[in-house]
C-alpha cells in the first residue's frame, strides 16, 4: 500500500477510536465537564497529562530543534521535564485538596478578590491561545504533507474531531481520549526511533545508542562522528553550546517555572480522587513524558547525521524523494548559488527569510526562488519541523512507519488542543460568567455556556491554523514567560505563605507580567535588530526573561504584603486546610 493509503487507514482508525471513547465518556454534569467527575485513576491521569502536555511542539518540532541546536537544545529537555518536579512537590497536591474547577478559581478564592481572578483569567486565555495556534499549525502540516489535502481542509477535519469529543465529553471525554492518544503518539515516536537507532548505532535502545559507536564499522563514537561531520561543514560541534551559561540557566528556569504554571497542565490534577493520587499522578505523568523526552535527543543526533549524509553534495536528481516532497510544500528548498549542480549544506542561512518560490522549476528540476541570496556557501533551506516527520523517510523505513508517525503527530496536536480548549472554556463559563458577572447561572446553563465557549474558541483556533499568524514562533516564549511570571508565583505563595494577601499577589502578578511582556515585545517586535546578548538585561534572552519576571513577582508581592493587612481569618483557615491531605479541622487557640 502507498504511504498515503496507509496514512488514511491509520488516521481513520485512530480518529474512530477517539470518537468511540468520547461517546462512551459523555459529560453529564459540570463536575464531569470541568474535572471529569474527580474520579480518574492516577495512572490514567498521568497518561492523559503526558498527552495533554506533549503537543505538536514536543512530538513534531522538539527533536528537530535539538538536531539543529545541539547541546543548547538541553534547555527544552531539562526545562520541560524539571517543571514537573515543581508541579508535583509545590502545587499539585494542594490544588487538588483545594478541590475546585479552575486555576483562576484558586487565585480568586485564595486572594478573596474578583480582580485577582480576572487577572488570572486574562493570563490563562493569553497563554492558552498562544499554545493552540501552534497545535493547529501542526495539524495542518501533517494533513497537507501526508494526506495531500489542503491545509484548511486538514484543519477543518481536526477541528471536527476535537469538537465532537471536547464539546460532548468535556474533561471526562478529553481525559480518556488523551490516554488513548498518549498510547498512539508514544508508539509512533518510539518505533522509528528504535529502527533508526539500530540503523546508525546498532543499539535497539535510542537512549544508549547515541552514546555508543557507529554501526558502519568505523568504531567511532556517534557523537564524535557527528561533531566531526558538522565541523567540516563549518558548523560548531554538536556537543558544544553557543549560548552563554547564564542564558541557558535563565531559559531552563523560565521553562521549568512556566511549565509548572501552565493552566491546562495544572487542571489535570483536579481530576484525580485524592491528594495522594495527585502526587502519584504527577510522577506517572513524568514517567510517560520522560520516555519521549529521553528519546528525542537521540532522534535529534541520528536525524542530523542522516540528514547531512543523504543530501550534502548530491545533485537534485540524486536527492531522496523526501527532500523533493517537502520542497513541494515549501519546507525544504535549494538554491544553487555556485551553479555546480550539487547541494552544498553548510552553516548559515542559504537565503534571507522563508522560501519565496517563483512558480517555475529550473532545468535540473528544483523549484526556483526569488529570495535574495546570502554570501555564505550554504545552499539548502530546511524547516526544523520536518525532522521528526521526515525521519522515517530519511532513514528509509517502511511505509507503515511513515503513516504511523503521521497519526502520532495528529494525536499529539489534537490532545493538547483539546486540553487547552477546555481550560479556556472553563475560564469563560465558570470564572467570568458564573463567578464574576452572573452568579445566578444554573448548572445547566453554565454547562451550555461552557460548550458554546469551547465551540467559539475552537473556531478561533481553526482560524489560526488556516491563516497562521506570522508571529507564532516568536510568541511561544510568551506562553512560558507569562505563566512563569504571573500564575506560578501567585499559586505558590498562596499555598506556602499564609501572610500573602490580595494586594501583594495582584501587585506581584502585574509587575511580573509587565516586565516579561514588555521585554519580549521590545526584543521580538519593536527592535528585533537589537535582540542580541549585548543589549539583553544581564545577558538573558527574551526566552529566559520569565525567570526574572517570576523573581520580581515574588519580591514585589512580599514587599507589598508586608505593608498591607493580613488576609482574613477565613482565608488563613483555607490555607491550613489545603496543607492537609484530609479534611481535619484545625483548632485555633484564640
Amino acid at each position, binding site marked *: 500500500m502507498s504511504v498515503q493509503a496507509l496514512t488514511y487507514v491509520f488516521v481513520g482508525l485512530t480518529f474512530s477510536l477517539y470518537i468511540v471513547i468520547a461517546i462512551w465518556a459523555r459529560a453529564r454534569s459540570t463536575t464531569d465537564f470541568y474535572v471529569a467527575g474527580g474520579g480518574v485513576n492516577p495512572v490514567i491521569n498521568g497518561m492523559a497529562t503526558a498527552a495533554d502536555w506533549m503537543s505538536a511542539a514536543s512530538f513534531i518540532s522538539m527533536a528537530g530543534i535539538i538536531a539543529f541546536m545541539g547541546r543548547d537544545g538541553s534547555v527544552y529537555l531539562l526545562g520541560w521535564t524539571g517543571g514537573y518536579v515543581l508541579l508535583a*512537590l509545590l502545587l499539585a497536591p494542594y490544588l487538588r485538596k483545594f478541590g475546585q474547577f479552575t486555576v483562576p478559581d484558586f487565585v480568586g478564592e485564595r486572594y478573596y478578590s474578583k480582580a485577582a481572578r480576572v487577572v488570572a483569567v486574562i493570563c490563562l486565555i493569553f497563554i492558552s491561545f498562544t499554545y493552540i495556534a501552534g497545535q493547529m499549525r501542526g495539524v495542518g502540516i501533517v494533513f497537507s504533507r501526508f494526506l495531500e489535502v489542503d491545509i484548511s481542509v486538514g484543519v477543518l477535519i481536526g477541528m471536527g474531531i476535537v469538537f465532537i469529543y471536547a464539546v460532548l465529553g468535556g474533561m471526562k471525554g478529553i481525559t480518556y481520549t488523551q490516554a488513548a492518544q498518549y498510547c498512539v503518539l508514544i508508539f509512533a515516536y518510539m518505533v522509528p526511533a528504535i529502527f533508526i537507532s539500530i540503523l546508525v548505532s546498532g543499539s535497539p535502545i535510542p537512549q544508549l545508542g547515541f552514546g555508543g559507536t557507529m554501526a558502519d564499522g568505523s568504531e567511532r563514537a556517534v557523537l564524535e562522528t557527528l561533531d566531526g561531520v558538522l565541523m567540516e561543514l563549518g558548523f560548531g560541534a554538536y556537543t558544544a553550546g553557543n549560548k552563554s551559561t547564564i542564558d541557558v540557566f535563565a531559559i531552563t528556569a523560565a521553562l521549568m517555572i512556566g511549565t509548572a504554571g501552565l493552566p491546562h497542565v495544572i487542571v489535570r490534577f483536579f481530576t484525580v480522587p485524592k491528594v495522594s493520587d495527585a502526587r502519584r499522578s504527577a510522577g506517572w505523568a513524568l514517567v510517560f513524558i520522560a520516555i519521549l523526552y529521553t528519546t528525542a535527543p537521540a532522534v535529534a543526533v541520528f536525524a542530523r547525521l542522516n540528514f547531512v549524509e543523504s543530501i550534502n553534495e548530491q545533485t537534485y536528481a540524486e536527492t531522496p524523494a523526501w527532500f523533493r516532497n517537502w520542497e513541494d510544500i515549501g519546507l525544504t528548498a535549494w538554491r544553487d548559488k555556485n551553479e555546480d549542480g550539487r547541494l552544498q549544506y553548510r552553516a548559515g542561512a542559504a537565503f534571507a527569510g522563508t522560501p519565496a518560490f517563483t512558480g517555475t522549476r529550473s532545468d535540473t528540476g528544483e523549484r526556483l526562488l526569488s529570495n535574495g541570496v546570502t554570501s555564505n556557501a550554504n545552499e539548502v533551506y530546511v524547516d526544523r519541523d520536518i525532522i521528526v516527520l521526515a525521519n522515517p523517510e530519511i532513514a528509509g523505513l517502511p511505509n507503515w512507519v511513515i503513516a504511523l508517525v503521521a497519526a502520532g503527530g495528529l494525536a499529539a496536536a489534537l490532545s493538547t488542543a483539546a486540553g487547552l480548549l477546555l481550560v479556556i472554556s472553563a475560564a469563560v463559563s465558570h470564572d467570568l460568567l458564573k463567578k464574576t458577572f452572573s452568579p445566578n447561572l444554573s448548572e445547566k446553563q453554565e454547562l451550555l455556556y461552557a460548550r458554546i465557549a469551547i465551540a467559539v474558541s475552537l473556531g478561533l483556533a481553526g482560524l489560526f491554523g488556516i491563516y497562521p499568524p506570522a508571529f507564532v514562533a516568536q510568541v511561544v516564549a510568551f506562553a512560558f514567560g507569562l505563566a512563569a511570571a504571573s500564575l506560578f508565583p501567585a499559586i505558590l505563595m498562596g499555598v506556602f505563605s499564609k501572610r500573602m494577601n490580595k494586594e501583594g499577589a495582584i501587585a506581584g502578578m502585574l509587575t511580573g507580567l509587565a516586565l516579561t511582556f514588555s521585554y519580549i515585545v521590545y526584543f521580538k517586535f519593536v527592535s528585533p535588530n537589537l535582540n542580541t546578548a549585548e543589549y539583553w538585561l544581564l545577558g538573558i534572552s527574551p526566552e529566559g526573561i520569565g525567570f526574572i519576571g517570576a523573581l520580581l513577582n515574588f519580591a514585589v508581592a512580599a514587599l507589598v504584603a508586608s505593608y498591607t493587612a493580613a488576609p482574613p481569618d477565613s482565608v488563613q483557615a483555607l490555607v491550613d486546610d489545603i496543607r492537609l491531605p484530609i479534611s481535619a479541622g484545625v483548632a485555633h487557640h484564640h
Partner: protein
Amino acid sequence: MADKDETDTVHHHDNQDNPIGHSTHDADVMSETRLGDYWRANLRLLGWLLSVWFIFSFGLGIVFADTLDSFTILGFPMGFWFAQQGGIYVFVILIFVYVVRMRNIDKAFGVSDEDSGTGDAL
C-alpha cells in the same frame, strides 16, 4: 510577616511539653502545633528534594557541565549526558521519593488519605 511567625514559634514551644495529649484530644481536629509540625516535616522534605533537583539539573547539567565533560558516562561527555538524559531520570526518581516519603509523613501524623479507615485513627 515576621511578627506573626514569631508568635507562632512561641506557641509551639509552649506546647512542646505535652505533645501527645494534644493530638489524641480530639480525633478530627488537629491542634495548631501538630499542623505546624506536619508542615515543617513537609518543608524539610521539600528542601532536601529541591536541593537535589537543583544540583542535578542546574548544577551538573548547566553550571558545571563544561568541567564534567572531560569525564565520560555511558559513552557520553558527562555534562552533556546530565543535560540531555540524566537530569530527566533524576526528576522522575525525585517525584516518587516524594510520594513515598510524604505517605510516611502523612501516616505518622494521622492525616493520610490513603485508607479511609485508618485515616482519622490517630
